[in-house]
């Protein structure tokens, strides 16, 4: 090849690469515009009008929906339920998922069976889970109370979904049961990439199980850990379906979260403007956290702490 053509090739190549890059991301950009940007702009519009769902010309009301939101005691109550959900509903599947993954890590026989069994609840439809667990929690004929009575713990039997102090935690148990399988499978995959020689070396050096986990294993799976943490935590802000099916946000708002409160305002009270404003709050709260965790994960990956 001549010197002249060698000096031209990179420019042509760069332009061609740029064009190719643009062409390749066009499909995704179309989907981002159609399924994210347009709905977001729509949501911003609905949040500044008083839209009841049927009036084709809703009046502009400025920031009234936002003012109402910040002075609405029910919003703050729903947000506090979200925080409980995030705290308990994030720590539990992470801890249980990691411990079970550690146990399965050393299992050779039937490991596929265990993985399927633990992952199965995660792929079941939320509606089906909610309905079946609703039957389990039924105060009269539910399986849970029947078992408690059968083993002499009848005093503990109660209306799990009907008592305001207990209902949210009862639904949380169901959600943790359904979601932990995801954490187990992801952690198990990450553990398969852990350098076992380092683990053995630390054992020889006298490190106990907890020390091996904290100092040797966790640092090698941190990016995956943070990824699961991000998904679980962000999911806690946007939780809706399982609460809607099992309690509808009741009794009397005891299990209301931002998602169910936004739904009831939008679709049951015909207050779509206010419901949209509440939904935007979910976005505003969850996106910064997701971005921060994502940056942390990338930083740790670049530092070479990945498995």
């Amino acid at each position: 090849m001549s010197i002249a053509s060698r000096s031209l090739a990179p420019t042509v190549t760069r332009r061609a690469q740029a064009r190719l890059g643009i062409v390749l991301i066009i499909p995704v950009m179309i989907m981002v515009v159609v399924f994210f940007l347009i709905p977001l702009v729509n949501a911003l519009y609905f949040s500044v009008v008083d839209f009841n769902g049927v009036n084709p010309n809703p009046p502009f009301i400025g920031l009234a929906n936002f003012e109402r939101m910040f002075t609405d005691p029910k919003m703050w109550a729903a947000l506090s339920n979200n925080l409980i959900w995030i705290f308990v509903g994030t720590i539990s599947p992470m801890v249980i998922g990691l411990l079970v993954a550690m146990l399965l890590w050393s299992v050779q026989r039937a490991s596929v069976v265990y993985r399927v069994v633990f992952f199965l609840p995660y792929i079941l439809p939320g509606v089906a889970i909610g309905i079946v667990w609703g039957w389990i929690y039924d105060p009269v004929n539910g399986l849970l109370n029947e078992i408690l009575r059968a083993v002499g713990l009848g005093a503990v039997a109660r209306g799990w979904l009907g008592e305001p102090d207990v209902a949210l935690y009862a639904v949380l148990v169901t959600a943790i049961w359904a979601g932990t399988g995801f954490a187990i499978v992801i952690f198990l995959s990450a553990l398969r990439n852990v350098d076992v020689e380092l683990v053995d070396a630390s054992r020889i050096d006298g490190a106990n199980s907890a020390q091996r986990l904290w100092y040797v294993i966790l640092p090698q799976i941190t990016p995956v850990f943070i990824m699961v943490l991000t998904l679980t935590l962000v999911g806690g802000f946007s939780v809706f379906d399982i609460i809607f099916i099992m309690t509808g946000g009741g009794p009397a708002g005891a299990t209301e979260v931002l998602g169910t409160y936004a739904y009831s305002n939008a679709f049951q009270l015909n207050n779509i403007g206010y419901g949209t404003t509440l939904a935007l709050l979910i976005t505003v709260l969850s996106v910064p956290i997701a971005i921060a965790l994502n940056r942390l994960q990338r930083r740790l990956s670049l530092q070479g702490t990945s498995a």
Partner: protein
Amino acid sequence: MNNLLRLTAVGVAGVLAVTIAGCTGGAPGGDSDDPNTIRFMIGQPEDPADLELTEQDMLKFEEETGIKVELDVIPSENVRTVLQTQLRSGEGPDVFGYDTGPGFAGALSDAGLLYPLTDAYAEFDWPVYEFAQERVTFNGDIVGIPNDIETLGLFYNMTLFDALGLDRPESTSDLLNACEVIKETGVIPFAISDQEGWQGGHLLSIVLSSEIGSQATKALIDGEASWDSPEVVNALQTLKNFNDNGCFTPSPAAVTYDNANALFYSGEAAINPTGSWLLQDTERNVDFEVGYIPFPASDGPGIFSGGLGAGLFISATTKKAEAALAFLDYTMTQEHGAWVIENAQSIPAFPIDTTGIEATPLFTQVLADAAKIADGSGDFGFNIDVLMSDTFNEAMWNGVQAILTGQATPEEVAASLQENY
């Protein structure tokens, strides 16, 4: 490079096709341009047998008129959201079943989404009862045909009552006494469900109507009396007393409507406070004799709460008004009314000659009660939630749940009702 671009073009086309298909696609079942095909949307009936009856009815209509009905059945809890979305987009069903209250059909009428039927009433001379016509009249226009007259009361296990030596309760103290006797047998006195919330509105309706009477209840509904009054507080207190005495299902806010009905059908509960719409299902599912009485008052047997169920409406943007009106007219005939009474145990909101109609004794009683609602000769209370706004209804439903779970006092709930009126 050219191959790659071609592949990319195919990929983009695929994405666009999926996007366009997702964004459009029309209403379920497709919108036929045939003027003799109409789409009829209803909420899923509680019993599949009722859906079969509806389908048979549609076939009969098609045979008689040559107009085909495409039945569009959606989950009842989704009717409001799906219907509003479709009507706003101009792709609503031609005819649909919907609640008649101000928060339901009234809201659609205010938005101009309903076909006015005032002229059709005159043209077809539909003999709908006047009180029922008023319930589907908004802004001076009649916009719907009320489907059926319903009452709220107590279904009770007469066989069990007889075995326990209990008479029909004629006062709240009779009812409390019956509750104590029934509890001793291990049977749950009342099959109360309130997990979904709306049942609380019915409970308040039946207790309040019986205790203060129809005139006083109407005054509350019309805003002429305050919901933050001793009468309302007493009615809410009655519910609290019955719950605190263990007369209701344990933790009623955790019990679903279907589960409570099942408790009554199986004999595990003795009394089921619900409405006459459940009469046919009740008779299908029980193996004991059933009675139907109003919730008693403190000083007497009480009165049923009565009112209208849902109605039939035509979409304002329908292009098949003639066929839709023909469908409505079909439902207003004596023949159809008699069929509905005999087969669906539903009571039309217009006069029907019931001579020769085969009905169970219980349904004959309900029919007689409905006739008194219709001609105004009987005293009936009101089913509050079909006459009130969404905001009030939510306060009422949450309020009764709060009372049953101890989260609020009757005074607090009454104040909340007045605030949200």
